[in-house]
């Protein structure tokens, strides 16, 4: 068992979720509430990481974040930061490829809140944050919860993008999914087995818990 890789994956998933949640909530809610001309294009861009091959996504991220790219050069000069082949690069990539996993469930959750309810809150004198805390957040919570779980679990398991952008540097970019691949390449099936099973159980447990929680919330209505 490559514990270092497991801890790295957990850290990556946690940081990704933390970074992505606030803008994801905002974007999902905005898409649920607003009608505008280019909405379909924005929605398509949100879904794009879901349909692109991870290697294609990883390739473009590498090209645009790498040391030779304008963005990479600027980060290195102005901020003294490297955006590829390190943990920070993984976080940036991971945030981007998880956009659909957080935005879509959040958008559906907010779309399901009847407009009347937020209007009733406004007429009752509730301001934006009061409406958010007393109405929107609890009502959208099942969707937000499943978005968080999906994002976390998906980050834990992502392989292609991570390999393209991060390589396989132990303790820096070698996540558990890459460690499994590494073990298989070395014909160490016993270690690959343990890690694969761990990832499988973890994912199954997380998704089951989120479904169970959503169902319970739904019946409480």
């Amino acid at each position, binding site marked *: 068992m490559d514990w270092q890789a497991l801890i790295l994956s957990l850290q990556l998933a946690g940081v990704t979720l933390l970074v992505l949640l606030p803008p994801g909530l905002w974007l999902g809610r905005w898409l649920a509430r607003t009608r505008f001309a280019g909405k379909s294009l924005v929605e398509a861009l949100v879904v794009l990481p879901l349909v692109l091959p991870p290697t294609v996504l990883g390739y473009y991220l590498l090209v645009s974040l790498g040391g030779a790219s304008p963005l990479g050069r600027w980060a290195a000069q102005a901020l003294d930061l490297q955006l590829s082949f390190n943990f920070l690069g993984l976080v940036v990539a991971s945030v981007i490829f998880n956009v659909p996993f957080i935005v879509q469930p959040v958008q559906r959750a907010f779309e399901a809140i009847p407009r009347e309810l937020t209007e*009733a809150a406004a007429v*009752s004198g509730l301001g934006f944050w009061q409406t958010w805390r007393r109405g929107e957040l609890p*009502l959208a919570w099942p969707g937000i919860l499943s978005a968080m779980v999906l994002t976390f679990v998906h980050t834990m398991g992502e392989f292609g993008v991570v390999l393209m952008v991060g390589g396989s540097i132990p303790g820096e970019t070698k996540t558990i999914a890459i460690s499994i691949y590494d073990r298989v390449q070395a014909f160490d099936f016993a270690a690959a087995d343990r890690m694969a099973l761990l990832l499988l159980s973890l994912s199954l447990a997380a998704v089951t818990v989120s479904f169970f929680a959503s169902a319970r919330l739904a019946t409480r*209505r």
Partner: protein
Amino acid sequence: MMLQVEVEQAQPLPLSGAFRCDSGELLALVGPSGAGKTSMLRVLAGLMRPQHGRVQVGDEVWCDTARGVFVPPQRRHVGLVFQHYALMPHLSALDNVSLPLLHLPPAERRQQARRWLAHVRLSDAQQERRPAALSGGEQQRVAVARALAREPRVLLLDEPFSAVDQMNRQGLYRLLADLRRDLSIPIVLVTHDLHEAAMLANWLVVMDAGQVLQQGPPAAIHRAPRNARVADLVGIQNRFQGRWVGPSGQDGWGLLQWQADGTHTATLPLLTVRDKRRIDVGQDVHWVLTSDALTLLERPPGAPDEFAAVVTEARPLGEITLLALELEALPGTVLRLTLSGPQRLHIEPGRTLTVRLDLGLVHVMPVRGR
């Protein structure tokens, strides 16, 4: 405290009209679905900003597009009961009613919410339940309690009785009548049920296609609708066609020739009705009669205001019977009336009876430009 409203809008949906409603009065906006009633309510609540308009309550101006004034719903103190109640499904009845009381400390908030829920007669056990565990009538009461907890300057109700069964409806009518007496604020009710409007409201505003067509006390509108559309909208069944013949010679009275659709027989009845000097000689007109103006007699006609008619339909509906009678002099012309009491027991389709029209109650309307 007077509520004064003026709206003039072409986009995104046409909406225009003006009305006022004083404290303790109940104004009913009536009309078919899509008439703009709910939009009007949304303008009052601040959920919709009209293109041009003005809303004033007492000396507070809530909206004045000419001066760029628009007070958001949070600062209007409006009690709004939504058509489908719009209760928060994840909150108990008590927590729902606490929402407009968030400015109070928690203990006082709950105490006040309980007081309002008790006011609409919800038991302590019901107060702890979520909306899904309450009946339609109970949810309705929670919605009313939440609106009242806002301590509104104006109470707005959007089709409040549409989803409530007949038995609960009677209770809610009483509740509304009590509120009107106790609160002494303007109350605006949106409904498509004319009986409801006539029973509860002291002022009716008839709307169609975004326009206010006519307004006044319910009885006045029933007696004298401005045009055929209003007559249809307020459910006047006895609407006929005719031609204005001119003054009858007797002061204040004129002659009306009763016509059926397209038929021009020689024996058209001539009626002597009130002349308000609004109609040109020879003009085609619509005219209406409320069912109060119809009397059924079981003898042959003996006066100019009495007509022989055959019963074509007699539909018993519990305590009353709905009757349709076809006029012998004007085949195809049907009079409708409701009958109660012993007379209805022996009236059957096929019988010829006499209908007496109270011609003093005939209301004549010009047919508009066609």
